[in-house]
């Protein structure tokens, strides 16, 4: 899996994407586009001002400063364009799949088909899809059963069944019917299907900012305003001091220096990378096979404190497995196994297969042989609640049955057999441990009881423990009775459970958790899950589920994997962590920049022995005032490019407890942010001095 991901990662750094992003960086210089990002807009104004000043008096210093200020803007645009490009590459396959398609409009009454262009499809239209047809829009199957290839969206090559009614009635635009046919009612207008929404989240131009992103932009803009006052005030304070020191004018206090100082101080790093972080966060989710309907939901996922998880498929493997067999009465273990084996040969359910496996593993001696012509399989029916086999032995027909305990008991009693005393005891014991008992009988004699157990997924307990560390409680939902549920809950290590769950009890649980101030996430697929999905703060609908569930949730998991919820929470957290880390880094950098630029600007006041008095504060002993300012500006521009990969991939999020995570990030991005620029600016200064650029 991880290797596959790495390969994808590399693929997205292709020449095409990088080249296109470079082109886009220039296109994004359009004032309308720039205005959306106040920090970069301010940087652009400064670059323009510096350019004007440069034209007035061009020299090596002013030319290079204005060039680097423009680079700062371009680098910020580039990071955004790159994130968009990667997102588009991920989404383009989806988009292509529904372009230039024809749809077959279906008239229910006359049963006639009419070909129209997809762009003319409206919500509510009824269409028919034959084998090989691409389903043109999201919709709900109203008639027919078919296997559908969803690999274009999910990447999963095995086709899935879609049928009318029940929980597998929703189809997604862009998937292909492989066999049979489907009559589908279109449920979304053009431009509003899941694929369209996903593309919108990834494309910068149409992207809506998430609440936290808006708040952060606001804070950055506010601090920029303060810094504007600082630089303005500095100009006049500097002039006054220079005048008092007996100088007519301070050359270094020029427009070029002041714009440089301003750009270096305002948080260009986070300002430039902010939208790239948001876009790539959505992109990461898409890569995990989740479509979010809004960025807001993804952000909310990071805040989730309670996860409602379905037991089946999430906590346990979908099916129960044979765990043990208990002979009863005078029956022998081997005989029980042999008869059970016979009764289960034709049982294709996962439970049946696990029983066969159990018998094969534990049976000593020969396997019973069956003659095809003398063996008649009795399938399971809801009425008899048992299945089995009839074997013609010549003189009599051997009836072997396996099924629900009470059904088998009735069957035995009807044949005149007795129910051994120990059955009840074993059945109670199995139920208490959370298992399901099945009884086996042959020729009217009760042979024994099979212990079917819910097998808890590997590593799930560890996963829940990790979640607890980062402050998330898990609640298991199951239709099982209280006893069974309690036993599985304790084995899996969930914090709470709801047994004999109904849609109403799920909804009530979500409400009560929300009343306590928790944010709740859940997954669901059926129509009856819709109210709970809508009520939850993050509701993830399974792609295999009904249209109603799709509509109610705020995300759709294309792989229909309930465990995905945990990944979604992590992606949400990572998004916020990356923003916080780069903001911290951005402000921590300012300390070094002050120590570089201010002594340089004021190098000419109170000079003695060739050094300005304030140059004592130039801790790095940079070559000259001009090289110092230029180095700071170059560092400021390059750091955007250097941090672009981090913005795109997100800060590594590990499931550390909060305090440790905070400590780690403060150390790397806070303390690192103070130290790194001192070193980097010194290196840049040495480099540009040696290259003779200044």
């Amino acid at each position, binding site marked *: 899996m991880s290797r596959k991901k790495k390969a994808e990662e590399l693929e997205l750094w292709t020449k095409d994407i990088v080249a296109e992003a470079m082109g886009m960086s220039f296109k994004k210089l359009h004032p309308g586009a720039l205005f959306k990002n106040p920090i970069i807009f301010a940087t652009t104004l400064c670059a323009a001002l510096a350019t004007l000043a440069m034209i007035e008096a061009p020299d090596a210093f002013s030319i290079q400063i204005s060039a680097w200020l423009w680079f700062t803007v371009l680098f910020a645009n580039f990071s955004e364009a790159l994130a968009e490009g990667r997102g588009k590459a991920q989404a383009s396959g989806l988009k292509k799949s529904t372009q230039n398609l024809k749809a077959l409009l279906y008239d229910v009454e006359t049963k006639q088909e009419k070909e129209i262009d997809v762009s003319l499809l409206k919500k509510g239209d009824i269409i028919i899809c034959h084998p090989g047809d691409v389903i043109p829009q999201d919709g709900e199957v109203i008639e027919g059963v078919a296997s559908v290839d969803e690999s274009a969206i999910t990447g999963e090559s095995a086709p899935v069944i879609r049928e009318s009614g029940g929980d597998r009635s929703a189809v997604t635009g862009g998937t292909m019917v492989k066999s049979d046919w489907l009559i589908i009612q279109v449920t979304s207008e053009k431009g509003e299907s899941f694929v369209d929404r996903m593309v919108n989240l990834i494309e910068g131009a149409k992207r809506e900012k998430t609440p936290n992103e808006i708040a952060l932009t606001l804070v950055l803009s506010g601090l920029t305003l303060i810094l504007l006052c600082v630089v303005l005030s500095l100009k006049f304070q500097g002039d006054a001091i220079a005048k008092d020191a007996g100088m007519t004018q301070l050359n270094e206090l020029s427009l070029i220096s002041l714009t440089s100082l301003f750009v270096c101080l305002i948080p260009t790093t986070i300002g430039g990378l902010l939208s790239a972080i948001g876009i790539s966060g959505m992109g990461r989710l898409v890569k995990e096979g989740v479509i979010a309907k809004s960025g807001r939901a993804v952000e909310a996922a990071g805040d989730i404190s309670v996860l409602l998880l379905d037991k089946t498929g999430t906590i346990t493997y979908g099916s129960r497995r044979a765990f043990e067999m208990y002979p009863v009465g005078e029956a022998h273990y081997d005989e029980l196994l042999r008869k059970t084996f016979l009764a289960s040969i034709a049982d294709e359910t996962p439970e049946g297969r696990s029983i066969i496996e159990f018998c094969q593993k534990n049976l000593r001696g020969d396997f019973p042989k069956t003659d095809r012509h003398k063996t008649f399989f009795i399938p399971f029916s809801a009425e008899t609640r048992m299945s089995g086999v009839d074997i013609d032995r010549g003189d009599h027909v051997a009836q072997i049955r396996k099924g629900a305990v009470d059904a088998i008991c009735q069957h035995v009693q009807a044949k005149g057999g007795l129910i051994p005393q120990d059955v009840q005891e074993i059945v109670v014991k199995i139920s208490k441990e959370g298992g399901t008992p099945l009884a086996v009988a042959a020729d009217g004699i009760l042979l024994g009881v099979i212990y079917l157990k819910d097998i808890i997924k590997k590593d799930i307990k560890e996963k829940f423990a990790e979640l607890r560390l980062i402050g998330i409680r898990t609640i298991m939902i199951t239709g099982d009775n209280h006893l069974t549920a309690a036993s599985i809950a304790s084995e899996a290590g969930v914090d709470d459970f709801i047994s004999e769950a109904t849609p109403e009890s799920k909804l009530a649980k979500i409400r009560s958790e929300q009343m306590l101030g928790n944010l709740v996430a859940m997954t669901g697929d059926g129509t009856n899950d819709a109210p709970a999905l809508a009520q939850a703060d993050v509701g993830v609908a399974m792609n295999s589920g009904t249209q109603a569930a799709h509509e109610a949730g705020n995300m759709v998991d294309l792989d229909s994997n309930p465990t995905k919820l945990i990944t979604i929470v992590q992606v949400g957290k990572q998004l916020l962590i990356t923003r916080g880390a780069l903001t911290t880094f951005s402000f921590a950098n300012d300390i070094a920049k*002050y120590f570089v630029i201010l002594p340089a600007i004021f190098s000419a006041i109170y000079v003695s022995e060739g050094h300005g008095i304030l140059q004592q504060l130039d801790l790095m002993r940079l070559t000259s005032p001009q090289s110092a300012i230029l180095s700071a500006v170059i560092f400021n521009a390059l750091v955007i490019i250097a941090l672009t990969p981090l913005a795109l991939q997100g800060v590594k999020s590990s499931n550390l407890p909060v305090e440790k995570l905070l400590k780690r990030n403060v150390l790397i991005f806070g303390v690192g942010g103070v130290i790194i620029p001192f070193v980097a600016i010194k290196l840049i200064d040495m480099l540009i001095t040696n290259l003779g650029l200044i």
Partner: protein
Amino acid sequence: MQWKDILEILLFALPLLLLAPRFGYWLAHRLDQEQPTNFEYNFFKFFGFRFGPQTAKEYFKDLLIFHLLGLLAFFLIIYGIRLATEPMSWHLALNTAVSFITNTNWQAYSGEVSLAPLMQMLAPTVQNFLSAATGMAVMFALIRGLRNKDSNTVGNYWLDLFRSIGYVLLPLSIFLAFILMSQGVVQTFDSVINYVTLEGQHAQLQLGPVASQLAIKQLGTNGGGHFGVNSAHPFENPTALSNYLQLVAILFLPIALVFTYGEMLGRRKHAWTIFSVMASIYGIGIVVSLLAEHSSNPALQGMPFLEGKEWRFGKTASILWSTATTAASNGSVNAMHSSLSPIAGMVALFNILLGEIIFGGVGAGMYGMVIFILLTLFLCGLMVGRTPEYLGKKIEAYDMKLVLLALIAPSCTVLIGTLLSLVTDVGLSSRSTSGPHGLSEVLYAWGSASNNNGSAFAGLNANTIFYNVGLSIAMLIGRFGVIFPVLWLAQSFSKKKILAGNAGQMSIESWMFGFLLFSIIAIVGALTFFPSLLLGPVLEHLLMLRAHVM
């Protein structure tokens, strides 16, 4: 430094560390009643006040109208009744009135000659109580906002005002005033003693009701003295004990209220964390100042910094006072800040410029600190992967807008004001000297006004139309430009639901949080004022080391 100095610092810290927290807890229980008591009910009914819960808008409206009336009354008393020896000009009267209603107590006048004794009692002393109580009231409104959920109200202004004065400020002031009188602080309606000096000249000694004003001046972080030279005057600060008591009184309530805040929110540990951050910034300031003061001045051939210090009490007492009065937004002085060594002066200046949040004004310091707490949680809290929240309240874009307003209002006023002073002739000519020290004077004046401190770097002649009017505007922005967003924040929080506290959120009690809060305060302060401090005190210090005489 001698062992006596160390002992002095310890003695100073003792009541603040031991008594103030306990007093803060006690205050929380005494004042924390949602419903008015019978006595309050009857009192309010008698005067016809509304005492139901108010929305932030109603709260602010009442507060604003009350202050405008106070401003008008103050102005009429000191400008209209021309009883004093040197009546004030309209702009000086305006400046003084604004200064007292905003808890700034900037004094561009000398109280003993510009105000008659009765006027001193009616105008400054009354406002000393009201402005301090308003600071406490706004803090209580903020606390209620943080505690409420799905509510629309933040409490009642009149009730908060009444309780703050009636149960806290008035009893404490009476108590302190009596002790100060026992030390020889004057308290009389006789305004002048005429006497003949040894040389046979006629001279006057100014007297007045000093003790009653002095007590609330210190307790309410007001700082406006009866005398122009404030607590450096023997009648306002006669003995070592009176000096000590005043010093403790400056910081006592601001510290106690940090613990009241914590106790009312049920988060004592959080209060200790906040206190530790304040105390460490304050402590660093004291150490730096003391080191600077106890060094010698190369420009004076290695002489120590003696000029302008109060030699009855010594240098250490002067430094303790200068740091305390600037950390708490008090502004009273017992030595002239202009005479501090450049670095000690910078510490005083920086304390003010940080926004009066290191203990700060009564109530005002704590709610100012909450602004920085919210900024810290917002910037650093993201790093744990959760939408930032404070005490279970999500911090959203609207809240951050208010936080920024509260940050920008005072700091941009200082920067723009300084800029205006430097480009106008009247602004420049008021300086006592040119060069870095002159810049410090201007910066200090604007900083002191915009952050409602009220102390002066002396030297600057602020009694001009330019400074009187300009600083009045700065004081109003600094006071109401912060109260407004804080009340609206209280309203915003009041409406929000309280999210369950759980392990997923960063702790607001850990040392890590303290470290981050400290860093954010230092970095935001440094980002905003480092250039100005560099050109002012730092440059002056470097020039002094070079023995450069200006």
